[in-house]
């Protein structure tokens, strides 16, 4: 136990999540034939890319003690609009299309962020509103036309299947590798840059952060713009993965991204959690989602119910373990550990 306590608490949470994922893979591999084969690995990792990118953006926002419920609609809008752009300009440089998607996402995030940070409207109200507004705009704009993969350039359609390198049957897709690199960079920025420390400071205690001359408004605005930009990128990935984009594209992804972040140990009240954790959370949610589909004897109708139970279980266990670790760490070091929620209700009552 003492060796474990030498790790930082957030690392411990990530490690425990890795253990949960390993156990889940082990159990499913007993239940499902050919579970560890290449095709399933590829399917999980490809669907992971979209959720993980969204969860990373959601994490940045949640860390500042806000929430972004509009990301599903931003994914829909950017996927659709970028599809239109590519239909119109199939010969332009690929980077332009990606930049286009990211810029639109960032613009939508900027609107969210301005309303939250400067107009001081609570994030849940702003993004609940823009969730509806962005989707409404898309539905009116689309005029019930659908983007199809026919008109898209080949490189977009081929992107999800392009492989960087392979371990035997396990292909590491370019998209997946890119996502992991992106998240690692974000993690390093959060941990290393002044901006990263500000994000945690604002989320831990906005008033104290203000007293310490942290530009709270700018940090919050930045988190929303980043979340929008990442949602734009996810929109592009969505377009390349599915090819066909209807006005319902990305519906419900906002809840999935919150679920991934929370399962990944990001505190819903801000100030603690990591982007790598949210990546692991996204992996677990995707893994369960896709694995449950293949368990023999378990009809597809069971999937959501089991997923709900598992999310709840993951959060409850994480919460209890986190609280226990927090107490142990406090005792071992004689001071509260960062990244662990302070003792709460139960502890007060006890």
């Amino acid at each position: 136990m003492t060796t474990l306590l030498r790790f930082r608490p957030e690392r411990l949470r990530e490690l425990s999540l890795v253990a949960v994922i390993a156990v889940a893979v082990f159990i499913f591999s007993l239940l499902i034939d050919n579970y560890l084969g290449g095709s399933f690995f590829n399917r999980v990792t490809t669907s992971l890319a979209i959720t993980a990118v969204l969860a990373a953006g959601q994490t940045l926002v949640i860390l500042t003690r806000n929430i972004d419920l509009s990301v599903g609609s931003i994914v829909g809008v950017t996927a659709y609009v970028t599809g239109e752009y590519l239909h119109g300009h199939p010969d332009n440089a690929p980077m332009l299309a990606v930049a286009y998607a990211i810029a639109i996402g960032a613009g939508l995030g900027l609107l969210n962020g301005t309303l939250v940070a400067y107009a001081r409207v609570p994030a849940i109200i702003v993004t609940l509103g823009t969730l509806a507004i962005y989707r409404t705009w898309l539905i009116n704009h689309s005029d019930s036309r659908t983007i199809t993969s026919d008109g898209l350039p080949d490189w977009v359609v081929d992107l999800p299947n392009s492989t960087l390198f392979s371990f035997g049957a396990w292909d590491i897709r370019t998209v997946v590798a890119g996502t992991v690199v992106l998240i690692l960079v974000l993690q390093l920025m959060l941990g290393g840059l002044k901006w990263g420390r500000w994000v945690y400071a604002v989320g831990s205690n906005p008033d104290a952060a203000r007293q310490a001359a942290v530009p709270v408004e700018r940090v919050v605005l930045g988190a929303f713009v980043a979340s929008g930009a990442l949602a734009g990128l996810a929109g592009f990935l969505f377009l390349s993965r599915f090819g066909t984009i209807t006005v319902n594209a990305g519906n419900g992804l906002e809840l999935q991204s919150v679920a991934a972040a929370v399962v990944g140990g990001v505190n819903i009240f801000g100030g603690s959690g990591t982007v790598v954790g949210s990546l692991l959370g996204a992996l677990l949610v995707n893994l369960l989602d896709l694995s449950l589909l293949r368990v023999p004897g378990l009809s597809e109708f069971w999937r959501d119910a089991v997923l709900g139970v598992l999310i709840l279980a993951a959060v409850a266990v994480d919460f209890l373990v986190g609280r226990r670790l927090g107490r142990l760490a406090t005792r071992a070091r004689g001071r509260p550990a960062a990244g662990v929620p302070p003792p709460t209700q139960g502890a007060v009552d006890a």
Partner: protein
Amino acid sequence: MRDKALQRRWELFLLVVLAAVFCVNVSLSEFYLREQNFINMFQLSIEKLIVVVIMTFVIVNGEIDLSVASVMAFSACVLATLHRDTAVPFELAVVIALAAGVVAGLLQGAFVALMGLPSLVVTLAGLIGFRGAGRILVEDNSIGDFPEWFESLGQEPLVGRFSFALILFAVLIVVAGIVLHRTAFGRSVFVIGNNANVARYSGLNVARDKLLIMTASGFFAGLAGVLFASRLGSVRGDLATGFELDIITIVLLGGVSIFGGSGTMVGVALSILVVLNIRNGLGLGNIDQNTQTGVIGVLLILAVLVPNLVARVARSSQVRRVGEPSPPDHAGGGDTRQREPDLHPTQE
């Protein structure tokens, strides 16, 4: 005191909006003023309105329940499955379906109130899980053929022109308003929502009240689901999908603080009228459902934005005159989830 004045101003604001919407609607269509139009307006979203009433308690209490639409579907699916697959008398099946809602609420309430998990997360899992539980029961079928009395309960007027659900809602919102504003329990709902720690140290049984409210939320969601089934005459797994956003929007538009601890049932009632009349007017003006949703979204943001800006402008001119520092913002600050600096940000 400040809070109360703000709330009055809020209700006044909603009243002005309502009057404006009313005038526009009257000029828009001759059908608007017909009695039947007003009844239809309520009748078409009566299940949501029933849940709005209990959601007010949940949010004032400082929690949120994202699972209500899924619990509605779950209860309706329980009812439909019992009706299709078993010989249970239909009346008993209704009771069991309502009990299913109670169990759903109790379960989530236990995690929130007893374990101290954030309700946002618990009910997010509930949103996915109870929808899934309903799906297990009905799969992708549509189940109908309910007894005659049950379908007419939802579709036919019971007294005069009013259906059972409409009368139930009218009674419910009045009783709920009295409970929230005129009883000791109602006071404790506010105190807990304001600051659960203070409430606990003041000797209030926070866990019990939270459990009670979450359970009631499950019950009323279940009831709304059963009523929805009786109005539609059939049940599918995707019943009421997405209702939670509409329901929460109406409550927040009613001036209930998302951080808990403030709001009035009068405000929520006005908000119901505003939303229904806007949707009705847009409908009469042949504007599609989708745009109506967008308009409500804009309204939700403006509803908090405008008073904030007005307050800020008023304050800055005051500061220039008096040269005193300004009081805090109305919405509690956009970047803070809780209304005051709190040393224990993980608290409910």
